């Protein structure tokens, strides 16, 4: 009775759990979308006049919309990876750890589940951006969705990997402050990298989110300062790296 099918079914139900939990926590959705909405509304509208510069090649709101989208995908994803810590604190983790399923199936289910909820939040933010007047006209919605999914799955895995080695929620706050915020600010989500000073530009090129932002710009507004192929390659590499790290570290958790 033990087949690959069983692993798939298990992964599907782990995915389902993430979706159910997401849909039940309305406040979490509101909380996670509040900040990016402010960014969009205040930066997008407020700086519109001041930053009508030629280096953007369009409105500032258009420019930051893919950046804010990337931010939403990243924070939502890393947070749902962090569920592992909550599961550990509330005991549920044990139930999954002693089950006769591969740990990798659990990681994959969690990663897909977290990515699904992150993409959903991303679509909401795109919708709000469109209401504010951003020119979101993707050449292919399917491609955009797939890209959003890939970026999200990478960051959920990143969250799982970090959470697997953390004992409690405090350590996770630290990671959020020292990883997530720098990753976001260095990613060129808010300003064009071409006009940034050298050290910042170099740091940006080491930031995987930079490539996510540029790839999203490509697909969502049709303008980007980087080749789409390069961006996709870096994101794919980041996905493979974070997923294997997540599986490896999750497998090492001692129940």
């Amino acid at each position, binding site marked *: *009775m*033990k087949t690959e099918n*069983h692993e798939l*079914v*298990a992964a*599907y*139900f*782990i995915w*389902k*759990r993430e979706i*159910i*939990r997401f849909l*039940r*926590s309305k406040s979490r959705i509101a909380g996670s979308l509040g900040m990016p909405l402010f960014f969009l509304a205040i930066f997008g509208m407020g700086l519109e006049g001041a930053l009508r510069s030629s280096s953007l090649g369009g409105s500032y709101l258009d420019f930051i919309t893919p950046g804010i989208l990337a931010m939403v995908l990243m924070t939502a994803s890393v947070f749902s990876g962090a569920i592992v810590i909550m*599961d550990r604190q*509330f*005991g*549920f*983790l*044990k*139930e*999954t*750890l*002693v*089950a*006769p*399923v591969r740990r990798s199936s659990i990681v994959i289910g969690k990663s897909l589940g977290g990515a699904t909820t992150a993409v959903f939040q991303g679509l909401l933010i795109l919708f709000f951006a469109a209401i504010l007047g951003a020119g979101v006209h993707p050449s292919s919605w399917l491609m955009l969705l797939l890209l959003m999914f890939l970026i999200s799955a990478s960051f959920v895995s990143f969250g799982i990997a970090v959470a697997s080695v953390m004992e409690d929620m405090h350590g996770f706050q630290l990671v959020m402050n020292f990883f997530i915020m720098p990753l976001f600010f260095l990613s060129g989500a808010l300003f064009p990298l071409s006009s940034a000073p050298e050290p910042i530009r170099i740091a940006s090129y080491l930031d995987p989110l930079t490539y996510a932002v540029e790839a999203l710009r490509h697909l969502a507004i049709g303008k980007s300062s980087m080749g789409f192929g390069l961006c996709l390659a870096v994101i794919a590499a980041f996905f493979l790296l974070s997923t294997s790290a997540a599986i490896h570290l999750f497998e090492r958790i*001692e*129940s």
Partner: protein
Amino acid sequence: MGYAIEARCLTKKFGDLTAVDSVSLSVREGEIFGLLGPNGAGKTTLISMLVTMRKPTSGSATVAGFDVVKNPGDVRRSIGIVFQDPSLDEELTASENLELHAAMYGIPGQQREARIKEVAKMVELSGRLSDQVKTFSGGMRRRLEIARGLMHFPKVLFLDEPTLGLDPQTRAHIWDYVRKLREKNGITVVLTTHYLDEADLVCDRIAIIDQGKIVAQGKPAELKGKLSADRVTIHCRFPARLKRAVWGQDGILKADVAGGRLELRVSDAGRKMPAIVSIANKAKVAIRSLEIRKASLDDVFLHYTGRSMRDEPASAKDSLRIRRRAWGRGR
């Protein structure tokens, strides 16, 4: 009848600390077997090796016929576990918790629904299946965990301190379910507890474990029988005089004067009492009151470990656990 569990010289070391020290035990199929011991005795570590959560440092064990080191997957499919700490997803409903478990244990889709209803009925939670677990009381959560442990038709059910932090009435209820389970399904149950009276009531056989070693093993009645002594406390005017008078009588194993009373250890005290009373009358000692306590598992424990189990202070972690459960119940 076969054995559900056989452990040979099972040992687990954490650095210098030997948590489980060369434990050998056999549990028959269909038996309710209790592991008894104070906090930190090694009960949970022993269980965690049997359920393949931890690898033994040395020794071997089979559970439901499978080796815990060589075939952990088969062991896991054959056992149900109720952990010491709560392990439900509170955001999910009872039935969602059970469904996820069924999926992870490979129960085919068309059987899941029926099985969920079945186990819910067993623990009398049928009416609450679609409620979120966070609305459940502590006792209901435990019952749901037991139901979950039974989902995949395990041959052996492990219950690690299933009644810790629950009120006495709920505890009695939980034990009722465990007994019924064995009667109806013939399932083997291994439980740990440090409530001695409960073990006495529920278990067919018990093993007393202290500092990682099994110090006694057998049926509760046998273990108590081996002590062959009940405690008799006599409050009287001249306990020392009474002691001299009864000492040397048949069946009096021990006599101590403490304050205004005489403490005796008497085998089969009920039958010896008339003789003791008449000796007291002859010696002109007026008995104010008289108390017989049949040997209990507490005495057995004291006998084998030299310590009373009730003296053990709850560890910080335990009191935290109890508080957390209490908190969970309140909401």
